[in-house]
């Protein structure tokens, strides 16, 4: 038997079946965590905001009308939380109230390649981290999550042209960083 789709799970949850929410969490925990981690480059923040995303979803799901897909809706909650965290972090950096450490997880290629890759990684991680919040969000969703522009536009409540412009600007800034 195929797994129930989101609409069915939401209907069951709204009818009082708590376990339907558990299934939605299991289904979306990975994409939500991954998107937040890509956006924030921090396991702790991604973990905390993933849980917060599902708590907000739980609260709002009773009134969910299905105007958008659950996928779009849950990403919208997660990315709003991520964007706020990012804004706060960037503001703190500008005001020099704290510093942002780059947390690169360990990798396993050969030693020479490892050094070269690590340099590239550091340059790129820093450049991605410096993108303005909205450009970073668009770049994360498009490049890393491989979402189409139209879906990102729905998640962010923007038009496709704006999303494309943000994506192009992000690419050009990253390109400059790599060339420098």
């Amino acid at each position, binding site marked *: 038997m195929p797994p129930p789709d989101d609409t069915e799970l939401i209907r069951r949850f709204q009818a009082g079946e708590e376990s339907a929410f558990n299934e939605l969490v299991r289904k979306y925990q990975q994409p939500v965590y991954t998107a937040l981690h890509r956006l924030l480059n921090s396991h702790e923040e991604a973990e905390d905001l993933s849980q917060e995303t599902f708590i907000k979803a739980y609260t709002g799901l009773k009134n969910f009308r299905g105007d958008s897909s659950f996928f779009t809706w849950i990403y919208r909650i997660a990315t*709003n939380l991520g964007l706020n965290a990012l*804004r706060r972090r960037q503001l703190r950096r*500008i005001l020099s109230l704290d510093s942002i450490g780059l947390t690169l997880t360990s990798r396993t290629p050969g030693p020479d390649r490892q050094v070269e890759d690590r340099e590239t990684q550091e*340059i790129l991680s820093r450049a991605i981290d410096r993108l303005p919040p909205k450009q970073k969000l668009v770049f994360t969703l498009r*490049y890393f999550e*491989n979402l189409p522009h139209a879906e990102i536009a729905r998640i962010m409540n923007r038009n496709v042209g704006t999303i494309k412009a943000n994506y192009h600007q992000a690419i050009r800034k990253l390109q400059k960083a790599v060339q420098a």
Partner: protein
Amino acid sequence: MNTPHSTNPDCRAVRQALEDRFGAAVPPALAGERERHLAGCAECRAYRASLQRLQEGLRTLPAPDPGPRYWANVLPAVRSRLDRRRETGAGRRVWIPAAAVAIVAGLLLWATPQRLSQPGLEAGGVEQYGYLDLPDYNRLARVGGAEVLMDSLLEPAEREFVMGLSGVLDLSTDPVDRLSEMDEQAVETILQKLKEQSVIQS
């Protein structure tokens, strides 16, 4: 010259098309006309090569992987936090009640007549799921209600600093985004102005 800002409209179109396809697992082919342009334009080929180098670099970035034990703990953690909030009512702390937002925004509108021509707030959209949608946030920012949001985002010292900026800058758009996009020199200039006006101390 690896820049998308060519004066040649054909070059601009080709480079935009290349950027559109950037990141796609299997990039769709360019239209025949653009492929022909690429074949004859060394600058556009160099631009494509620089995009390829960027893509190769991005591929080396590690994918987030918290390990299998993490996934098994997500649901219990969410359930536990939900239970704690039910018990303590702490969840209400992070909500921004639409009524409060509307009242503060109303006061701001009343206090600043020049803003009366700006779009008003639609409180219903703010509270719907207990968080702010981006358009709501931007609407709030336009009428000055972003100050309310600042309370939930910033520590008191940070908030005081940002509010100080509004006396120096026209923060007609999202103030945090504006700050994020400023370069260091611009921030220095602002700091100097704030010091001159005794908003902050040296």
